[in-house]
């Protein structure tokens, strides 16, 4: 009995001493940190995708609390996370529409010509720097997967020499947009269904020489979608572009495009 008591006392004594030392250390050596940084970091999805322009979620959280960034930049988190962040920071939330990446090229291996046999590292920028790339169209997707390699969600895959985005997995971080040497990836509203899959603004004859599905700027889509007043399409040189402020919804437009570059199936979705 006595032995047990001594043991208990000794252990308790050591414990009390240690606790005292730690308490003193905590008081005099502690580092102050804004608790909101921790809260904001926890609220963010932790994907560390960098889409907000910061080096990861923690970095963005710190910038938010320091006031150098505003909520609303987190694409993966969407509205729910942004509202949560606004609540933590005590500011009004701004709603954002979900955006997904779109590869504006339809030139698969069976549709667009290749002018050489590329032999080198499998990367679009490297291929583009080698004699301008092996694709006949100098605006088209090279298909060496630079976008797929940077995608944090593995939402891009290369099919038949062409990058395609998985609409369901894409978080709209925009990494692929900046890495593409041909600058043909764009973030578009997820709700839009009709897209122009071409990025070549030069004259028709030049386009048809290199690609079977390139836009020649015939304006037929505009005509079919209610003319210029309907404002569903804009044009850059000889290239049509969907006006994503006011996107068309008529599926028949795709069938009526003589070059088959207006498409409804621009994305794939997992599960389909």
């Amino acid at each position, binding site marked *: 009995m006595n032995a047990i008591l001594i043991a208990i006392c000794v252990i308790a004594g050591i414990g009390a001493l240690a606790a005292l030392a730690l308490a003193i250390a905590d008081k005099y050596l502690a580092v102050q940190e804004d608790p909101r940084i921790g809260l904001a970091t926890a609220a963010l999805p932790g994907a560390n995708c960098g889409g907000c322009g910061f080096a990861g979620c923690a970095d963005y959280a710190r910038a938010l609390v320091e006031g150098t960034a505003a909520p609303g930049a987190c694409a993966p988190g969407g509205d729910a996370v942004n509202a949560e962040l606004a609540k933590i920071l005590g500011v009004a939330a701004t709603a954002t529409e979900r955006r997904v990446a779109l590869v504006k090229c339809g030139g698969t291996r*069976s549709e667009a010509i290749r002018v050489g046999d*590329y032999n*080198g590292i499998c990367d679009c920028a490297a291929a583009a720097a*080698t004699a301008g790339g092996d694709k006949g169209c100098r605006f088209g997707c090279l298909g060496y997967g630079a976008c797929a390699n940077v995608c944090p969600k593995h939402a891009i895959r290369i099919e038949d020499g062409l990058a395609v985005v998985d609409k369901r997995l894409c978080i709209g971080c925009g990494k692929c947009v900046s890495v593409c040497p041909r600058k043909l990836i764009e973030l578009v509203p997820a709700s839009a269904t009709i897209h122009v899959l071409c990025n070549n603004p030069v004259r028709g004859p030049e386009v048809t020489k*290199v690609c*079977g599905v390139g836009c020649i700027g015939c304006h037929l889509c505009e005509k079919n979608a209610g003319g210029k007043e309907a404002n569903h399409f804009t044009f850059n040189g000889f290239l049509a572009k969907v006006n994503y402020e006011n996107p068309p919804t008529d599926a028949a437009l795709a069938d009526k495009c003589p070059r088959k570059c207006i498409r409804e199936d621009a994305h794939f979705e997992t599960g389909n």
Partner: protein
Amino acid sequence: MLPKQTAERYILSSSPHAHADASTSRIMLDVIIALLPALCCGVYFFGLRALILTGTCIAACLVTEGLCRLAMKRENTIGDLSAVVTGLLLALNLPPDLPVWMAAVGGVFAIGFAKQVFGGLGYNPFNPALSARAFMLISFTGAMTTWSSSAWTLSAGSTEAVTTATPLALIKKGAEGFDWSQAALIKDLFIGNVNGCIGEVSALALLIGAVYLLVRKVITWHIPVAFIGTVFLYAMFKGGVPPLVHVLSGGCVIGACFMATDYVTSPITAKGKLIFGCGCGLITMLIRTAPTGAYPEGVSFSILIMNALTPLINRFTQPKPFGKVKK
């Protein structure tokens, strides 16, 4: 629809568009050629059995390499001959009387566990043949330290007790009164008329191979010279057994010229190679001369340990860029 292709397509690639007559398989072939004299010596001294063991090791390595690549669903790399080199080196480091199945297990370990686990050639941190040898030494200690009685023709001052021992085992035992400095002994050690592993006995044959590799610029002089030099100096300062006996016995020459110089597991720069070689020599002698040590020979272990240090050596011996101003 695909537009009509107008002209024949050219190959597009980045400069340089010329390439030296060098390839991985050519380098490996050179190593194999360089090891042939040693193999021939082994067969001459230990008989056909040495050849059977060598064949077994190479076959085991090749089969394992092929199966691993198949299982990993990657391209077959038997053609780069690196598995043949591993098998050959492993065989040359085995006692000639080892059971054949043990040699096969060693080959499987070398390729399976020391190489393909890491993704194949170029990624393994340790020399596969040496890893396998160390593994076998610990797993089959008896068989790995039993020596053939066919060779070892030491005449002067010998006793029956030494007929089945290697020179290094004798050194470890501290054979009193043995005259280490006799010329006949040095000659036997140099020619290979002693006991030991299949390929390590003849320093002459190994040096011929090493010279071939140096001439072909497959290896540089740094590691072999640093390795053997360190062993020599250590033995000289330690006294007792003549330094030349230490250099010529055991796996010192084959280790310094063929195992330590393995590209994948040794440092890149000349400075790094010198450090690597010195380290190998030092650890070898530490293990060899420790009176209580468990092993009479330390070459394989020393190279393995220095293999482990290679990334750090590389890190601290990065070359200075041409034109770089010292800050």
